[in-house]
């Protein structure tokens, strides 16, 4: 981060912007909604289990959408589920982020052609910040997606219009 690299002895002064501090704090504790849909949810669980340990990124799974910053849409979104996903998204407090994990929630995945009951991409109902490709993505891929999300949070600005798109 550059902030903690230096020692804070004798009341040193650190110069930074308010945005820098706020974004740094936020990106280090992005809380995730523990919400799995399908196969990818198993890889999401594997990402939070011992080998990959996503918690070192400050990720805390919370069961309630109202306490969360990030929703990982892990799996196929069906038409029956789509309205629920939308509602869950709306229940989250702003600023909120969506990671679309896996081909199914990116674009319908293997079900794109004959899946009469599958929504072809979760971005048809909620805005998506990071797409993680794969069927299913490996836990490492999810971690990579997570770091991309952190970069996005780092660029968040309170004044600029193009928030997080830089």
């Amino acid at each position: 981060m550059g902030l903690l690299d230096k020692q804070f002895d004798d009341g040193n002064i650190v110069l930074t912007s308010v945005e820098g501090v706020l974004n740094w704090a936020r990106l280090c504790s992005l809380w995730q909604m523990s919400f799995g849909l399908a196969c990818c949810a198993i890889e999401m669980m594997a990402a939070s289990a011992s080998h990959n340990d996503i918690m070192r990124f400050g990720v805390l799974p919370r069961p309630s959408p109202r306490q969360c910053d990030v929703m990982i849409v892990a799996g196929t979104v069906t038409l029956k589920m789509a309205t629920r996903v939308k509602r869950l998204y709306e229940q989250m407090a702003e600023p909120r982020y969506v990671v679309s994990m896996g081909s199914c929630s990116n674009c319908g995945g293997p079900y794109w052609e004959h899946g009469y009951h599958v929504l072809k991409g979760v971005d048809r109902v909620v805005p998506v910040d990071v797409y993680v490709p794969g069927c299913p993505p490996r836990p490492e891929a999810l971690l990579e997606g997570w770091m991309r999300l952190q970069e996005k949070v780092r660029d968040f600005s309170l004044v600029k219009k193009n928030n997080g798109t830089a």
Partner: protein
Amino acid sequence: MSETLEALQEDIAAGRLQTDELVLNMGPQHPSTHGVLRLELVLDGEAVVKVIPHLGYLHRCFEKHAEAMTYPQVIPYTDRMDYLAAMNNNHGYALAVERLMGIEVPERVEYIRIIMAELQRIASHLVAIGTFGMDIGAFTPFLYCFRDREYILDIFERTCGARLLYNYMWVGGLSHDVHDGFEKDVAEFIRKFRPTIKEVNDLLNYNKIFIERTANVGVLPPDVAISYGCSGPMLRGSGVDFDLRRDDPYSIYDRFDWEVCVGKGDAGTVGDCWDRHMVRVWEMEQSCNIIEQALESFPEGDITEAIPKRIRPPKGEIYTRVENPRGELGYYVISDGSQNPFRVKARGPSFVNLSVIDEISRGHLIADIVAILGSVDIVLGEVDR
């Protein structure tokens, strides 16, 4: 309406006052419904009067896809049905098409299939056990179980390149031969894994808190289990000694020496949540036995020799069933002689096992529903297909 508090209490005591039933929705987003299941709980106070499951939040149209695809193209979709036991799903489908076409697969293929299927069974049971513990409030066993599951996934990855969904067992053979040192890897895993079972036993299964939460909860009598078509650990937990690997043998299971694990009611009543859970734990040990015996007589050979050039089964139909970690996985395949199946119906064990939930949940508290649901061990991909 009673005027005073005393009058109200008198009315309640005399049973003159009826309380309204409360309807509580559990899911589709709920950490312990293991996916996107929605349960509509009708409650009287905190006691459950009725459970109405609403499915279909993960209905991915497997059967429609099967009709639109050629026979080998269906296999990746079977993976995604029960995504915790993809190998077993491949196995069932490959067997169905092979029997329809009359293909005999080589020895080596049979052995690899058995080893893979049993490793997958262990991996699947590990998830079931870990998440069941987590539902009830024990987080640590989850980490233990996932740690050991990763070793199995590593073996799968070395062989076929995928961690979760493999597309490994093809009609007439396998997509790849096993990697060099496969036997050593598997033997090494078994050696490392056996102590884990004891660890999980000490940590979780014989833990007093765990027993209190699961014993005598959700008792499923054997006749009800059969009438509801329950299978797998669900049926064996109720004390019915029935396992397709022994009673309707497929592949080469009849060559090995192993036991069918049956719930005995050690902690409470036969057929309670604890029995269903323990059947899974014991089955992992039996799977280790099967794998060890298969490794002893692991043959050499060519795995591709029986893979047909053109997969076009003759006109006909077949119902094939295999023992999935969750129970009886059946495929009803109808062929009209073309390269696409005319109809594939998958009989998912979770789908059938879940239908009994109303029967075994009545009269329990809401917290027990979580325990019951965890012990049924559903995979929503297979319930909704």
